[in-house]
């Protein structure tokens, strides 16, 4: 079900680390893993924001709960990925269910504010957890254990594991959006009153969508904890939620690859620009402003304008 550019990108992503290893630039493999993880996080936000029309300003909280789940389990001696990663997804899904249940009763700006508030509450909660580092954060003793002879400590192995998981999640997302559930959610985004009038339980659909996005973010968080070897409450600050939103907008709200493209563009820009100047955020600010004012569809939208993109 993929189109040509997507397959081309996939081939590149598979070949890239082998080339990097050949030229002894393993740092860029690590960097690419980071991009992939944020691609997953941004895509999960795109699910609710772009396709669901729910502007959540607290999405970083689910990233954080997933990351902390892995870190806390590691600190308590549980290092198997088969235990901690599913648990991270589960924990984040549960948090999302609870937060969504309360927040989705509100609309518009109140929804934005209340998701923000909940994210801040979780942020302060983790700051108060002195046993797990509190504000200073928590080091992970090692990366999660996968077994099967796969050692995640190796940058290449880790990259391929992340790549497979992210590609898998994007495939799942596509299936979801094409299925009845996804169609209903998008219809709710377009006109909730009409869907309600037809008889759909809109609240339930939105809540499930919200919870699924939270779970996906939790997986991204688990991978991020492994990538950094370190977690801290900073992961959950509202400015991080803002960054995720920026990624989605940059990439293209409501396009399947919007989150992934946005994350890639953002992180590469940050890396390239910050080598030149400390003030790279100025350029980012102008770019973002320009996009919001003039190019609402983001990078994916621009690409879709030139080729047959998917919406």
């Amino acid at each position: 079900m993929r189109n040509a550019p997507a397959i081309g990108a996939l081939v590149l992503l598979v070949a890239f680390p082998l080339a990097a290893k050949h030229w002894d630039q393993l740092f860029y493999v690590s960097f690419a893993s980071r991009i992939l993880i944020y691609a997953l996080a941004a895509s999960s936000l795109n699910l609710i924001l772009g396709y669901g029309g729910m502007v959540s300003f607290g999405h970083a909280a689910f990233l954080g709960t997933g990351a902390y789940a892995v870190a806390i389990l590691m600190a308590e001696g549980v290092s198997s990925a088969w235990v901690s990663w599913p648990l991270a997804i589960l924990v984040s899904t549960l948090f999302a269910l609870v937060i969504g249940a309360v927040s989705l009763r509100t609309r518009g700006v109140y929804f934005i504010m209340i998701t923000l508030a909940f994210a801040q509450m979780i942020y302060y909660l983790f700051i108060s957890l002195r046993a797990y580092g509190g504000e200073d954060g928590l080091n992970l003793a090692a990366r999660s254990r996968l077994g099967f002879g796969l050692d995640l400590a190796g940058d290449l192995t880790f990259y391929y594991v992340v790549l497979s998981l992210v590609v898998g999640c994007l495939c799942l997302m596509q299936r979801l959006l094409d299925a009845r559930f996804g169609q209903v959610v998008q219809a709710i985004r377009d006109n909730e009153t009409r869907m309600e009038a037809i008889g759909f339980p809109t609240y339930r659909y939105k809540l499930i969508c919200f919870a699924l996005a939270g779970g996906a973010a939790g997986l991204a968080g688990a991978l991020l904890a492994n990538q950094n070897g370190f977690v801290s409450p900073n992961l959950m600050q509202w400015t991080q939620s803002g960054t995720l939103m920026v990624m989605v907008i940059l990439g293209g709200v409501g396009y399947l690859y919007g989150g992934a493209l946005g994350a890639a563009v953002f992180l590469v820009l940050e890396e390239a620009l910050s080598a030149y100047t400390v003030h790279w955020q100025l350029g980012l600010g102008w770019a973002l402003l320009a996009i919001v004012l003039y190019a609402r569809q983001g990078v994916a939208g621009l690409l879709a304008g030139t080729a047959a993109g998917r919406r």
Partner: protein
Amino acid sequence: MATLILEQTLNGLQFGLMLFLLAAGLTLVFGIMDLINLAHGSLYMIGAYLVATVVRATGSFALAVLVAVLGTAAIGVLLEVTVLRRLYARDHLSQVLATFALLLICNEIVRIVFGSQPVMLSMPNALAGPVQLLPGFYYPAFRLAVIGVGLAVALLLYLLVGQTRAGMWVRAGASNREMAAAMGVDVKLLFTAVFGVGAALCAIAGAMLGPILAVQVGMGESILITAFVVIVIGGIGSIRGALIGALLVGMVDTIGRAFLPMLLRSFLSPAVASGVGPALASIAIYVLMAAVLFWRPQGLFPARA
């Protein structure tokens, strides 16, 4: 113990009134123009930097405040006319992102001009000492001045919005923008004026809080979120709501920070209590907001009919 409670009450009042200065501008902009403005904290930062610069150049705090108020209002009006005007018709997400972009731009420009290090801003010498309020109880003169300024501004806003024709237009705009425009209110001018006044209030808050906290890049972010919580609690578009909300939040936060660790210390170690206490106090204002939204989804004093 009595002086402790009195002192903490004054502290809460001081913090609450400063929050009010920020929240008043924010709630008007949100209520009348339906604009979520994340760059509001940046205006506060610009105001503080202007005060610090003028004080360093001339030594006069009063002059600095005047220059900062006028300067920030001018910058606010400029922003409104060039960028923000295009966002009124857009959805909230676009507004959030565009003003977030402005926030980044402002931060970087300030960093380029002033550097990353905090800029020194001291209290004016006349107010740098303590004042004896009760026998044996001293309170910093500057903080009393802050309370005074806050109350004066609140009174001024009340008179302006409640008793003048312009205020009537503002209230009409907040209540029902289309109807107000249909009734002949010059909506464009009104919007620009409201934004300018909001920016001026930010500058005053920056001048008052700068000497107490620090004038540094990013100083607007932390207080911005609290200001949003205040206006959601108080009711969007309502100055009265902003005042009550700000005082509520100010008191809850201060009392929480002051007394929760003390309370927790009775059954936890001091280090743990000091970590959990402020964290719980910070959560308290969000719990307050969630509760208000649950019980009265439009806030305590909604302006909209």
